[in-house]
């Protein structure tokens, strides 16, 4: 509770300092609008410019990409750790791609997928999958050998060792890593939504920028931040619920 209070007070202080700086007149409002103006812009966007719909579109894109990434990364990561040869084959390639910045692959993904939804989801997926697969492989590697052997000596077959022991054992770190990579998925959003988009928070921010509507740009950024904060807290709550023994 104390930590929560400290967090809220610290954030309030930053906002107050921002408001003060903006009102002092030392900084032009098109560079730094005051929080109250950002809030007004946010209200206008909510009531007149369909912001909720844009948020929904962005959230859907992020989650489709993220779930696709997780659905592939979890089994592949596990196989990479279980069979040394698979790990040896895949790891250098994954490391190579992992270090490529997502924007660098925008032209290529347009050539491959055109300018529709596929490109946006692909770019988001790209920013997530290659990070996640290595994290999953690592989680799997850290499952204690004794756990696996205990299960085998009481008659578990390979599938049962996987579902009843390995996945259970890696559960807490796996959920943590999913939470972290979901955050990374959101960070690629603007990149994905400036490519011929007509919807989404990225599109809203990018359009507002073109007309130097700084309060709206900031409002868009704040919305992403808020979504991130809420999602993160929900996943932490889920983590505590699922893993009561920790």
């Amino acid at each position: 509770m104390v930590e929560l209070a400290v967090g809220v007070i610290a954030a309030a202080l930053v906002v107050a300092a921002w408001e003060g700086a903006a009102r002092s007149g030392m900084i032009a409002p098109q560079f730094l609008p005051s929080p109250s103006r950002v809030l007004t812009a946010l209200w206008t966007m909510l009531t007149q410019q369909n912001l909720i719909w844009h948020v929904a579109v962005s959230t859907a894109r992020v989650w489709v990409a993220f779930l696709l990434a997780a659905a592939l990364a979890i089994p592949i990561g596990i196989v990479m750790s279980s069979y040394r040869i698979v790990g040896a084959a895949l790891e250098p390639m994954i490391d190579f791609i992992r270090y490529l910045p997502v924007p660098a692959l925008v032209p290529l993904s347009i050539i491959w997928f055109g300018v529709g939804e596929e490109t946006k989801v692909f770019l988001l997926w790209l920013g997530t999958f290659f990070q996640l697969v290595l994290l999953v492989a690592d989680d799997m590697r850290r499952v204690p050998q004794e756990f696996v052997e205990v299960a085998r000596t009481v008659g578990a077959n390979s599938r049962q060792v996987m579902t009843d022991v390995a996945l259970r054992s890696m559960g807490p770190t796996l959920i943590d890593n999913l939470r972290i990579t979901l955050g990374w998925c959101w960070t690629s959003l603007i990149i994905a939504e400036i490519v011929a988009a007509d919807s989404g928070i990225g599109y809203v921010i990018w359009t507002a920028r073109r007309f130097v509507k700084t309060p709206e740009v900031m409002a868009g950024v704040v919305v992403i931040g808020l979504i991130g904060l809420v999602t993160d807290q929900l996943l932490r709550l889920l983590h505590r619920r699922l893993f009561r023994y920790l």
Partner: protein
Amino acid sequence: MSAYVQFADTAKSFGPIEVVRKTSLGLDRNSLVVFLGPSGCGKTTLMRMVGGLDQPSTGSILLGGEKVVRPDRRRGMVFQSYSSFPWLTVERNIAFGMRYRNDITAAEKAERTRHYLELFGLADFAGPFPNRISAGRPPPVALARPLAAGSDVLLMDEPFGALDALTRERLQVELRQIQIREEKTIIFVTHDVEEAVFLADRIVLFSRRPATVVADIDVAAELGPQRPLEIRETQKFFELRNRVLHLIRHETGAVV
């Protein structure tokens, strides 16, 4: 009576490292055999091969005349690290031993779980997760699981190594009683001579790596099957312990 667990010209190397040199050894059913030897001498590897977790490089291991090829629930392992699953309650940890058995009913499983909870004084600790109960408790959880699974051979790798002296003593006494009452065959790996002499029907002493048998001591013939704590203070116990210590110093090549 022919041996229940039979090492038949068993040898094991990991790559270029020879861990166990060709060994033949028979262990009787319903006895507690201690594998004693210097740290890292290969006694754990011998035990793991009985468990089916490692395969011999040459030779084989027979259990009741049948070759061991893979782990199964007839041979339960108790590891040094105790290996309770942290995500299962104490009760479910013990019941995990029967999870893959279709030959007994759920009611029987519950009954057996309750039996072992009581046997190990864990009845009041059934509900909590293993990390929530005091330090003396985890080994019984790991010990109760293979018993509940119905293993008749228990393979124990220094299970009491990290415990305080009193808890350790208590568990040694309990283990010995359970072994006799439930008629289990136990291979117990340790490098603690006191513990070895107190628990064993028979001590097999191994040399430094690669492991070879350097002495085979019939402890039961000298101390009898029952091991009350007081036996540790008897002249016979002292003499036997000193003899084993002497053997370790002079025969195993261990640096003591």
